[in-house]
């Protein structure tokens, strides 16, 4: 794997006062390599968006470190933080609320330039026009319109143009297409792919739509109740999920063919409250393979195949036999291992 652009170590975010403390993100660690797209998936409320926001320190992490290009973001503050953070930009789920309704498209895209006085006058105008053209908004016809006069898809395009104005290295896409029509989703995804190639971007793609993530990601990370369950190359993770949760999650995804038989059983119940998460493995309350060990011991992320790591005491399919997996008993036979 090439060098890492972003390293996240033991990122933890808790909200609320003592006694009613919500553990939104708990000890999440991962790396994002230069130029790759990492998909971050999970049910709503699992902490994937909070992770994205904590990376930017929009939400203040309780502990852990975020290192961008070798520089520690969690230690920075004030102007240093503001300046360093511009290497990461973010696009949001709700395209309408992402743009100030009382400002014009051109000014919205120019805002980061104005903030840092990067360009003025003719140069500013040229940069803004280029960006708008690149995202498919005609600057002459639409540049002077107010944000509230655009549709959702157009707003998302303007958001992307604004994010690119600072020439960021990393783009965090937080559910960027979930609020859009399917046809518009495809356009926005294609636009992101094109821009990624052109600007040499690295993407952290947060979504709950597994099909979308599969198409766009090089690697995929799965979160459950604030913790990372599994992280690995998109192809292997989709073909042979090692964590029981990933397996259920994939099983819940709809097939394009309504006639096709359902491949997996459906996961029952609701995720437990993050106010009072289960001990040990957080998935154990819903996991059919859970044993006493899962309640007592928190599983660490362990490599089961090159680049494929799982936080489970009893991973489903093991190609390389790591230490703890040799001791397992039940799941190999009892669990259905013919995943594909």
């Amino acid at each position, binding site marked *: 794997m090439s060098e890492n652009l972003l390293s996240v170590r033991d990122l933890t975010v808790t909200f609320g006062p003592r006694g009613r403390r919500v553990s939104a993100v708990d000890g999440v660690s991962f790396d994002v390599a230069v130029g790759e797209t990492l998909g971050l998936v999970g049910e709503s409320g699992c902490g994937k968006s909070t992770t994205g*926001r904590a990376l*930017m320190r*929009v939400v203040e992490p309780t502990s852990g470190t975020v290192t961008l290009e070798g520089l520690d973001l969690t230690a920075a503050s004030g102007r240093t933080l*503001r*300046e360093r*953070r*511009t290497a*990461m*930009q*973010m696009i*949001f*789920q*709700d395209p*309408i*609320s*992402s*743009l*100030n*309704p*009382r*400002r014009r498209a051109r000014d919205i895209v120019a*805002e*980061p330039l104005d*903030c*840092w006085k990067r360009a003025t006058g003719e140069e500013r105008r040229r940069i803004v026009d280029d960006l708008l053209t690149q995202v498919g908004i005609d600057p002459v016809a639409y540049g002077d319109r*107010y944000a*509230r*006069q655009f549709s959702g898809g157009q707003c998302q395009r303007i*958001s992307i143009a*604004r994010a690119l*104005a*600072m020439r960021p290295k990393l783009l965090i896409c937080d559910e960027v297409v979930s609020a859009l029509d399917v046809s518009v989703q495809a356009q926005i995804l294609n636009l992101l792919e094109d821009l990624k190639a052109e600007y040499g971007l690295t993407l952290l793609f947060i979504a709950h739509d597994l099909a979308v993530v599969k198409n766009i990601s090089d690697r995929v990370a799965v979160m459950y109740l604030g913790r990372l369950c599994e992280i690995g190359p998109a192809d292997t993770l989709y073909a042979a999920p090692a964590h029981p949760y990933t397996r259920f999650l994939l099983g819940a995804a709809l097939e394009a063919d309504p006639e096709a038989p359902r491949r997996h059983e459906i996961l029952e119940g609701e995720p437990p409250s993050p106010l009072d998460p289960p001990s040990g493995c957080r998935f154990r309350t819903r996991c059919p393979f859970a044993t006493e060990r899962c309640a007592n011991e928190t599983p660490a992320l362990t490599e089961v195949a090159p680049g494929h790591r799982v936080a489970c005491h009893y991973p489903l399919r093991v190609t390389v036999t790591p230490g703890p997996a040799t001791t397992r008993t039940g799941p190999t036979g009892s669990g259905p291992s013919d995943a594909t």
Partner: protein
Amino acid sequence: MSSSLELSELVEEATETPDGRRLGVLFWLCVGWLALNLLAAVLANVLPLENPLTQNYNAVNAGPSLHHLFGTDDLGRDIFSRVVFGSRVSIEAGLGSMVIGFGVGAPLGMLAAYRRGRFDQILTVVMYVVLAFPAIIATIAILSFWTPRTLLKIIVVIGVAAIPLVYRVIRTATLAVATQDFVVAARVQGASDTRILVRELLPNVAPIAVSFLLIGVATVVTLEGSLAFLGLSVAPPTPSWGNMINESRTILQLNPWLALFPAAAMCLFLLALNFIGDRLRTHFDVTEGKL
């Protein structure tokens, strides 16, 4: 400075709404009426008016005539002139106290809603404690003891009483905006807090603030009238709408004009203010609804 800029932009935006929605003739009539009132109040010294304090015992309690357009009061003073000069007190009290109320309440409200946390909690509790105090009674009590009463003192007392009200409205309005993603986007781009407050939040809070300001001025004009009626406004012989109505109390049957004209002036002034405030509010509401 920047807020007045925003205001002119908003008005421009309002008059050229894309879907052809207009503010209506009545709105502009009200604006015209207010402008006329303001102009008269400012230029009262220059206009060919009689001295509002000059007494004329040859024309006491006279009805309207060409010489005295609105008639004269029980001391023979010209009512028209007194109504015009009296508007100064009302307008100064209304605008002055709102300058204090908004000058302190609005920035604090915006800051509290943007910052949240401890700062917001403490400030909000303090403001609600002040709000819980019956403002009218407090105003009357303070003004009864703080003599001699001048317009400035009245403005200060009402203005301070208005701070928590303004704070609450502006804080709530800002809160609705501050939680939106474009504010997060601005932070991520590296905008400073000041820049976010001025560039992102203010334009969205300003329409609500303007409507509330107009209605606030109207309320203070009424309040000044009430205080004057209780004899707690500026001391006679200085004319104010409230003072004039108060003076007419004992001779209402003899000279109804003395009560009628200042009351009508106040009524029309308040109607215009309220109508404009209301019209602007719904106008911007619809704009918001189109989001």
